[in-house]
């Protein structure tokens, strides 16, 4: 699993590096973000909080499983799943608001990087939702307990790392849009 996280990490590290390179390009004529265009949508702040919350609930789910609290484990697993789902919806809303402000993807690099980078992250989140859904279903079946919760651990490693990646990505975009 660690190897897999490193693989995903490499993807995002290289993307962020690429972003920094073009952002700091000294030969650039036009400003990075034309003043007529909207900054990053505020929805992103909400979605960040939601993603954090989902990490907390997923950890709670693991804690309950270790205590052999099958019901609590199932409850937190499904809460995590829906929070993840909400995150995807919020990102969609962020896209929508950018679009409504007439920032379309083929406008300039500022728009292009915003859409491409967030899309890349959301795709990984959606991948994680499949795993979370699987875990949540098993949890409701009472599959996990003190003796058996490896599935939650592995799923959690992936989910938390996406959390960290999102923070790095958001910070990059935020500093980039200044």
């Amino acid at each position, binding site marked *: 699993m660690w190897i897999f996280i490193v*693989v995903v990490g490499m*993807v995002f590290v290289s993307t962020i590096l690429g972003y920094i390179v073009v952002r700091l390009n000294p030969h650039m004529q036009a400003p990075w973000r034309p003043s007529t265009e909207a900054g990053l949508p505020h929805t992103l702040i909400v979605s960040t909080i939601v993603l954090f919350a989902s990490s907390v609930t997923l950890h709670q789910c693991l804690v309950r499983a270790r205590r052999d609290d099958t019901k609590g484990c199932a409850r937190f697993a499904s809460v995590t799943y829906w929070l993840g789902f909400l995150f995807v919806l919020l990102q969609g809303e962020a896209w929508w608001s950018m679009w409504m402000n007439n920032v379309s993807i083929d406008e300039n690099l500022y728009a292009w990087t915003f859409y491409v980078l967030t899309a890349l992250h959301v795709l990984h989140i959606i991948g994680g939702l499949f795993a979370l859904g699987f875990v949540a279903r098993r949890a409701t079946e009472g599959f996990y307990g003190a003796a058996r919760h490896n599935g939650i651990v592995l799923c959690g490693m992936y989910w938390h790392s996406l959390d960290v990646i999102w923070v790095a990505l958001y910070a990059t975009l935020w500093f980039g849009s200044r």
Partner: protein
Amino acid sequence: MTTIVSPRPEALDTSASTDNYLTFTKGFRSWALTLDHKRIGVMYMGAVLASFLVGGIFALLLRTELLTPGKTIVSADMYNQFFTLHGAIMVFLVIIPSIPAALGNFVLPIMLGAKDVAFPRLNLFSFYLWIGGAMFTLYSLAAGGFDTGWTFYTPYSTTTTTGGVIPVLTGVFILGFSSIFTGLNFIVTVHKLRPPGMTWFRMPLFLWALYATAIIQVLATPVLAITLCLLIVERLLNIGIFNPSMGGDPVLYQHFFWFYSHPAVYIMIVPAMGIISEIISVHSHRQIFGYRFIAFSSIAIAMFSFIVWGHHMFVSGQSGLMNTIFSLISFSVAIPSAVKTFNWTMTLYKGTISLTAPMMYGLSFLFLFTIGGLTGIHLATLNTDVHLHDTYFVVAHFHYVMMGSALIGMIGGLHHWWPKMTGRMYNEKTAIIASIIIFVGFNITFFTQFMLGSQGMPRRYYDYQPEFQIYHVISTIGSYIMAFGFFLCASCFVQSLLGGKKAPVNPWGGRSLEWQCSSPPPHDNFSSPPKVGNCYDFSMLRWDEKEQGYVVDKELEAKSIAAEARGHS
């Protein structure tokens, strides 16, 4: 003779049972849905060899076109597409998967003493990903082909009018996933599935090489994946971070691309080096010289591979300081490579060399890799590189490394493990003749190109000055000779499949674990955990006429164990 000859107990077990992986279950479904690493390896091998044929045909067409200046057989646009296809197919479909995915899949678990790889389903999945990637690449031909060169440099790749660029990028993207999953699988297998007694330093060197390769695959390929992804989006929308007119940076693409593709060169060569370590030691029946040095030099090469990518970009306008640093680091790659070469030579020295077909390829490798490696130094030197950059010198250099070393290593490995894979021997004499023809043809083809390049003939050109023609003609004749050699080699394999002699358990006198199970191996490799010893101690083996292969001599084994015990006390 009073010695009682008896094979190892494990060998007795398996030869007594009639089960073998090829006939264990029958029918198309049993192959298409198999989880057996050996079958997956064999299917990869078939697919890779088919791609090799296609890529080779393009190479011959190119060489034929270059016989005369101006048009010989195809138009300039067709020529551009041909060399792009030749490069893309040979790199992404042939050399990268050839050793790790095809031979590695077959050999790694058996050598390790495991029943299968750690994730058999993932293994099958990566095979189908490979097929999917290959399909996309084929589809790109139907969609209008592509003429970007295998490197897909921007901004040309985002602006060319040929229609097959997006399909082929998608194809390579998918192939990358296949490669990542194979690497992941191998790392976990080596860590988790070693049987009792198989310590890290008892692993055959091929496994060390595959392990080093897997590290590169896992760390470098994601960067290629994201780069190609960005390129696809960029081409679709005509805007993106590689587009200079919008403030993007086309050189950034080169950095990303070579951050993957330089390590990819080592994905190709390091496993070939592993194969050569096996072949040289087994066929000269001598303990490998400097085991630990070879093992660690594989890891060292893997590490170095990540910090030398800039030497592909000496003339791209990066700063002088960066050029100097990359040049220095590139020189230092020579150290682990030379460590290996000297150790192989020392293994040969005073060994009992059998000039078998695999050994012929092993010796070819040593020769060709030395040339390929040493000419690399010319290219890593800044001032000579400015002259030689983008000339045929570069073409000749990387063909010596990628083809003369990586591919020859893979063909050598195929000859080495062929009896184990198919249970049949091939006609040794024909195979040796084929190897000599390939060796001669290869040198005629590519050594000429060193001269072409140093005199200034640029690579990828359709037309050229008349004074270059004589070299082009010689090079083309060489490529025909080489093609004949490969066809002879292929006919030798076909003949072996149709009516080859039955292979013994141990035809070459190897000591690693795959030579303990029957040829072909049973479906679950080992019925009981195999006995692990020093896999390079050949002192206890002797040729058995009745078996037509090597067997363990009880008396010699006892002697060797006693000697080892004395050594320890």
